[in-house]
């Protein structure tokens, strides 16, 4: 069962590659215990891995992948593991653990660009995997996916993509209790990976109705 969990990861394909956003909170049950957990990591030269759910399982998967990348580099044959290969590897790992009734309690989002071909996929804790133009894990499934379905289109520019992701993360911040207002956005293109510094979103609480909600309706709350 999960102890320290991360909340949700949202990712989209845009014109030049993949954009992925995740907040930096690690909750211990209902306490927001860790507020600087980096939940997106680059893997090899071509991919980004983001995870929600149990953080320790994410770290173990990272160790496994490090070994994998190391062996791949040792071959030194000019070919390197791309996102599609990593995605199949992770699917097999998650599915086998689930078959042994000992799942790695995380949902992973894998994105990458190799030889001009963009790839964005997701693996859930029971081994369910699929590839899509926009993915979200955890609460993002319910809150972010409707927004992405309506507003995603091919050839989003970088700024538009960031704005779309920020919109989703803002809704998640308002309505999911385990998100923190500190997020990182990661970008991967043919040239390489950049993970932004943590920053926070502006929220708006100034609706006049929130000031005194029961001014006309005495007795309700």
């Amino acid at each position, binding site marked *: 069962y999960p102890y320290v969990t991360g909340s949700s990861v949202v990712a989209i394909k845009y014109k030049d590659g993949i954009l992925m956003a995740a907040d930096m909170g690690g909750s211990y049950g209902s306490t927001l215990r860790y507020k600087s957990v980096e939940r997106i990591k680059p893997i090899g030269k071509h991919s980004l891995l983001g995870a929600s759910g149990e953080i320790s399982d994410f770290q173990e998967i990272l160790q496994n992948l490090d070994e994998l990348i190391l062996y791949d580099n040792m071959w030194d044959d000019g070919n390197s593991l791309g996102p599609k290969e990593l995605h199949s590897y992770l699917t097999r790992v998650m599915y086998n653990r689930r078959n042994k009734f000992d799942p790695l309690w995380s949902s992973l989002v894998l994105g990458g660009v190799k030889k001009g071909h963009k790839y964005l996929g997701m693996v859930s804790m029971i081994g369910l995997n699929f590839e899509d133009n926009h993915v979200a894990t955890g609460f993002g499934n*319910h*809150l*972010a*996916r*409707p*927004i992405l*379905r*309506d507003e995603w289109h091919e050839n989003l520019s970088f700024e538009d993509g960031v704005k779309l992701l920020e*919109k*989703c993360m*803002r*809704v998640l911040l*308002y*309505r999911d209790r385990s998100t923190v207002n500190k997020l990182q956005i990661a970008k991967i293109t043919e040239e390489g990976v950049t993970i932004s510094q943590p920053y926070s979103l502006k929220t708006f609480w100034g*609706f*006049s*109705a*929130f000031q005194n*909600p*029961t001014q*006309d*309706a*005495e*007795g*309700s*709350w």
Partner: protein
Amino acid sequence: MPNDKSHNTNIAVYSPLRGCVFFRSKITPLNGFRSLGLFIVKLSSASAIDLSDTLRFLIPSHLNCRRFSVCLVAEKKGVFSESKMSRAAVEVPPKGGFSFDLRRRNEMLSKKGVPPPSFRKTGTTIVGVIFQDGVILGADTRATEGPIVCDKNCEKIHYMAPNIYCCGAGTAADTEAVTDTVSSQLQLHRYHTGRESRVIAALTLLKSHLFKYQGYVQAALVLGGVDVTGPHLHTIYPHGSTDTLPFATMGSGSLAAMAVFESKYHEGLTKEEGVNLVCEAICSGIFNDLGSGSNVDVCVITKGQKEYLRNHLLPNPRTYVSSKVFSFPRKTVFN
């Protein structure tokens, strides 16, 4: 096995505590026990009323069984009690409220593998928004019975008063009954006071009713209206708690609709913007939630007037309707 051919079904029930129980479909207290069929069921407890409940439930309804008698043969004594299928075997307590006497029977039945019947939920997306001059309520139109869509175009926006409407999510019977009840109470109140009903009156009546039933009346409501004090929008949860909000969503599609609201709501909406926002939110629920679907109903309430736009949007038209009616060849014989 019960004997299908005869009109009398005789079923014998063995209960270890009280001996053997026979029951037959014709009441003839003086006849002997004619058993044309035997159906042996082992029960762990046996009181006449429990047994008669259980047996009444177990009789297949296609058999011609209208009355049966439960005859308790215990050791040497025979106790005779009679019950009719149509009469309830349990007395309703005189003070109203729920009686939970059948719970034991229901638990026993589900343990034996008879699942309880599923009831019609509205598995819904309902939303409400306050705009410049009033309130806009919106709802989808799908009613589900478990995994099946039982009504493709039902009405979820219920009338409470000329200036107050209420959307309901949850069990369809509960939302209908509760809104009808409170609507009549509001009408009586209007006659009594001679004034237009206020939204908080409806709110308090609904709230106290739902709290009295401790969440068993599964009705989650979005109540909106305009009265002398201004426009109001409230959400009411099945246990009786309420919220007063500028925009609200309820139902299984509430997350999808709330995502749209949180990103697009701003103060001072005009009527067109409000209706568009509500339609977008409901469409987001319809397309992203399995419990919601079909069409969009919208109701705009402003001071002094209301517009009930039934089926304002039909985003799911029926495609591939063939123009030829299906014709059966004549002289078809069904074997």
